[in-house]
């Protein structure tokens, strides 16, 4: 099956600065991929390379088998793209903006308007449909951008910080819409975000990018393993009781696990030892822990290099 997104040794250099260094990744159709990294890591550059807005200095990439540099319009027919710098026409209304982009997606005028109206309703922007886009608040403008990206019913969504600068309500509305798209069968989502908790709920695979270099790639459990982040067994016991080999932290006994398979035996042993087990749980490493382990290591490594 053709990969939804493929990159092989993809690099981009701006003068002396290497914005992206030999990125290689492959996403299958229908996957929801979280592309994580601090500001300036190269996430936006990657999205722009994959959508044909930039030409790679080295390497190659494809979207559903199409080269974004050679056939950008065919790639765009399959993709919806939201980036912070891609804005909507401030003098046109929300409805006019969406209808226009609907027509560019090949819809007849009436059908484009119909889809625009439907998306404006779904995104809670119907009341502002005839308002000039320039008068929209940041949250409304971001929702309108997302609606614009959805006008062509894309098979692949590139979302670059879609909730950046939004208030919690707007961020939630955008996140819900992305989740709804991700749940649609066959829709691939390439999500660049700082919202690690949200990414953990939504994404099935992750890439961690730092200073243009891909530090890690995989699902959460494989990333946790690579980062040396272990799952923990956590117990809350009766007053004065102790569990040998466990450390006590804020009233809970914790112990790292080599494998999650150890957990049932630990629970059984605690009960057989006559301990009062009020609570026993398996604490998996969060994406946040894994991310900071990778990025922290990298920063530490750089600091060491600098001091050396």
């Amino acid at each position, binding site marked *: 099956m053709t990969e939804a997104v493929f990159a092989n040794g993809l690099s981009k250099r701006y003068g002396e600065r290497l914005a992206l260094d030999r990125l290689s990744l492959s996403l299958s159709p229908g996957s929801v991929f979280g592309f994580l990294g601090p500001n300036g890591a190269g996430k936006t550059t990657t999205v722009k390379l994959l*959508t*044909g*807005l*930039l*030409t790679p200095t080295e390497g190659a990439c494809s979207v559903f088998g199409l080269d974004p540099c050679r056939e*950008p*319009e*065919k790639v*765009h*027919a399959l*993709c919806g*793209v939201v*980036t912070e*710098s*891609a*804005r*909507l*026409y*401030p*003098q*046109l209304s929300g409805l*006019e903006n969406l209808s*226009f*982009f609907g*027509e*560019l*997606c*090949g819809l*007849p005028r009436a059908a484009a308007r119909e889809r625009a109206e439907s998306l404006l309703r779904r995104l809670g922007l119907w009341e502002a449909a005839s308002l000039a886009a320039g008068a929209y608040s940041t949250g409304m403008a971001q929702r309108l951008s997302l609606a*614009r990206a959805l006008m*062509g019913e894309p098979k692949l969504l590139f979302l670059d910080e879609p909730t950046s600068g939004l208030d919690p309500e707007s961020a939630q509305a955008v996140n819900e819409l992305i989740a709804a798209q991700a749940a649609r069968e066959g829709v691939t989502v390439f999500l660049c975000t700082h919202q690690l908790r949200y990414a953990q709920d939504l994404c099935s695979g992750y890439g961690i990018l730092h200073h243009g270099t891909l530090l890690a790639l995989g699902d959460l459990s494989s990333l946790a393993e690579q980062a040396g982040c272990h799952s923990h067994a956590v117990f809350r016991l009766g007053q004065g009781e102790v569990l040998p080999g466990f450390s006590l932290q804020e009233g809970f006994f914790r112990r790292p696990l080599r494998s999650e398979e150890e957990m049932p035996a630990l629970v059984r042993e605690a009960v057989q030892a006559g301990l009062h087990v009020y609570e026993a749980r398996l604490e998996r490493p969060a994406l946040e822990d894994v991310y900071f382990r990778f990025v922290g290591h990298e920063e530490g490594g750089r600091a060491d290099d600098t001091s050396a």
Partner: protein
Amino acid sequence: MTLPLDSREWAIVRKDLKNVWHTKMARLTILLVPILLCLVLPAVYVTVIALVPEEELAADAREIAALFAGGEADTVRRLLFSMIGQMLGPLFFLMVPLLSSTTAAACSFVGEREHGTMETLLLAPVTLRQIFRAKVAACFLLSAVVELVSLLFFSAVMAVGSIVLEAPFYFNGNWAVLVFLLCPLFTVLGIIFMVLVSGKSKNAMEAMQTSSYLVLPVILLFVGQFSGLFPAGPLYLLIAAALAAAADAVLLRLASRAFTPEKLLR
């Protein structure tokens, strides 16, 4: 570049025309330039010629009129009327496509970059060639309408002047070359010039100001006539049209090469 345009290109044309109309500075320029240059100024000039007694017309005016209008007119009034029809009128008339096309192109190309909408447009499922064609077509169409309106304004003033002063109507071979060849070529020149400077201008206003560089060749075109160095005739204007066509062809090639996402979003 061949017309007609497809439905996506027409959508861009409609959007660009709407955008120009919504930009106050562009709207004012496009409305005021033809009104001032092809209606108000010629009307004032013709009114003065018609109302001021012939003996009060300055001797200089008589000499200038006699020098440039050749043997087409026989009285000072008619000579001066002929001067507006054959010398000042064409100069004003050529300014119209230049100013309207550069204003429209400034909104269409530089304005998109200024508002961050060029990236959005480049992310749509249309080719760069379609975007370029549609944008050039939008600017050209707008300029063509402005030119047509200007021609109607000027013709109306000159028709009244012809009746009042009993002078021949202004339209002749020179004007045919001007309207059907030079104006379209200068319109394209204005648009392409703006595409080329769009990467160097921070905003549409700055880009519009650079269009003044284009007014210079238009003035030069008529300096020959004013100085008496070149004869005013269709051949002279045809040579100017050929030069403009050559400039259009070269600049069009350069502009379409410069029209790449990386250069547009720089």
